[in-house]
């Protein structure tokens, strides 16, 4: 997480980008749960675009891209494709990225019913014109929530909802050191 200028001064430093698509941000919180280790990590890597700093687009190639969440709208798909283009290695972090997770519970329900429940049927709703949000500013929702690996090639998968911080730290350390990650049995979660 240095400025782009500093980043070019240290071209050898690996760069990590992260994004939350149709996730709850819990996987990002689990990244932060590495706690003080993030200070040491920041010594050896640069953070490129990520919700935890203020960089919003890619400004160069990244070593590792970490994806939280699956794809529930067209924008998620574009962002994911952008990550594939700009990152050497892509990691699906957590159940939502891997199989759609809880948001994919809508997959066997017509989208229209989901919208009607929230905007027409909910008790206390004031909606005299029967509006369902449909502005051009709102990206199109996909018919269902897609796992990331159905949209682009994903290189690594870390299971869990969210995966424990220790698992994330191990995978990052291994990828940066060029070895195969070895997640301890207790850190492999399928919740």
């Amino acid at each position: 997480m240095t400025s782009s200028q500093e980043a070019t001064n240290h071209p050898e430093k690996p760069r990590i980008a992260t994004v939350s698509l149709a996730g709850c941000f819990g996987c990002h919180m689990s990244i932060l749960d590495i706690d003080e280790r993030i200070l040491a990590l920041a010594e050896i890597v640069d953070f490129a675009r990520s919700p935890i700093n203020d960089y919003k687009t890619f400004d160069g190639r990244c070593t590792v891209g970490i994806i939280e969440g699956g794809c529930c709208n067209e924008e998620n798909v574009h962002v994911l494709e952008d990550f594939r283009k700009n990152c050497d290695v892509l990691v699906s972090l957590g159940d939502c990225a891997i199989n759609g997770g809880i948001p994919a519970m809508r997959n066997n329900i017509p989208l229209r019913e989901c919208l009607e429940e929230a905007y027409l049927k909910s008790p206390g709703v004031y909606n005299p014109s029967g509006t369902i949000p449909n502005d051009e500013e709102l990206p199109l929702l996909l018919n269902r929530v897609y796992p990331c690996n159905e949209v682009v090639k994903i290189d690594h998968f870390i299971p869990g909802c969210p995966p424990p911080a220790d698992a994330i730290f191990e995978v990052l350390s291994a990828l940066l050191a060029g070895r195969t990650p070895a997640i301890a049995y207790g850190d492999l979660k399928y919740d």
Partner: protein
Amino acid sequence: MKKITIDPLTRVEGHGKVTIHLDDAGDVKEARLHIIEFRGFERFILGRPFWEVPVIVQRLCGICPVSHHLAAAKAMDRIVGGEQLTPTAEKMRRLMHYGQIFQSHALHFFHLSSPDLLFGTDGSAASAFAAPREQRHVLAVAKSFPELGRQGILMRKFGQEVIQATAGKKIHGTGAIPGGVNRNLSVEARDHLRKDADQMIRWSKKAVAVARDFTMDHLLEIATFGAFDSNHLSLVRPRDGALELYDGVLRAIDKDGKTLVDGLEDQRYLEALSEEVRPWTYMKFPFLKTLGPQHGWYRVGPLARLNTCRFVPSPEAEAARIEFQAVTHQKPNNVTMAYHWARMIELLHAGEVIRDLLDDADLQGEDLVTQGPRREEAVGIIEAPRGTLIHHYRVDRNDQVTMCNLIVSTTHNNEPMNQAIMRVAQDTLAKKPEITEGLLNGIEVAVRAYDPCLSCATHAMGKMPLQVQVVDAHGAVAAERIRSHELDAP
């Protein structure tokens, strides 16, 4: 053709986009924060057995999962007739909740907002209160203010450890079940947390001082920055109106402190509140029914809570509240940037509550769950870190959920955030539909003060792209700008 667009608002979690609308004279008439994600929780939860709900719905938000977990559990307590929790169950949940307030407020302040407060005012920033971009993260704070940065990281860690000790996991645990909890607090966990509790309170007091000094040193700019009068709403403690975050009654006041709603029991929230749907955003607009959609909107969250409560029931935080209130001569504070100071006072309060709870032997009690006559409908309301959170369910005789209504904290602040953006735009645009760096920064800083959990709000969470458009009176785009790292696309 003219239009302004800002895209990504990174450290405000979730997706968003802003359009600014001008009238014929070229003056700002409206600002819209578009929430562009939709999840469908209220529909896909239907048909699920009720005991799954507290665990499923916390996946609305990984930043405040405990709030959803507990709001749903409180509703399900009533479904099983177990709302009179055992002392152990109630205190375990309280501890979990105040742990969450502590971690979330620390996260917001140190990781998301302190760069603006620390770097945005040193003269190097493009506009007041906005840190230069390469410094807008906790690692930059840790570099320039090593002590403060480290403390921020360790304070969040402490809150997360309280959650882990009560819920089994730092994120998406399973501590609360209908009618109670599934564990008590082990003596080892208690002693581990006790070790750090006093340190956390000392650091919280320092954080209060940072937020207070920032506010007092910039009182003039802050008084008008994204500021506007509003009503305020929160839960308060029933008997004495004290600040109460886990369980209370609804109270609303107007901008001057006049009572609008008082002592309203959580089960009856629909008597006071309604939500308007607008076509341009997935986030609804709640309002007080007595005042209607035009005038009935209100603020929630730390600022609103310090305005509605009569006092804070812990000594150090109460002393801080009295200092806070003196600035507005005991009247409600309607200044957007005052949220930061209020939030740190709550952080200190949460630290004090946690410390005191850890001394309570009820946490090691064995009586965890209670039950009574079954109900088919129930409401659970809690004060989440960002404000009042409402969960409302119906459950049929087969134990399946048949109705679910969620009004999350950030949704209550929908209109206030639009108002704040409008104020910033009015002050910055000055009849020129030109999106300057100052406007972009101002919008981000104003929105960030509300700590929006857009993930919660859309029943989703994601990155927050900020894209700003200025639209003229005929609906044509006057200027558009997408926030990006190096390059600002036209």
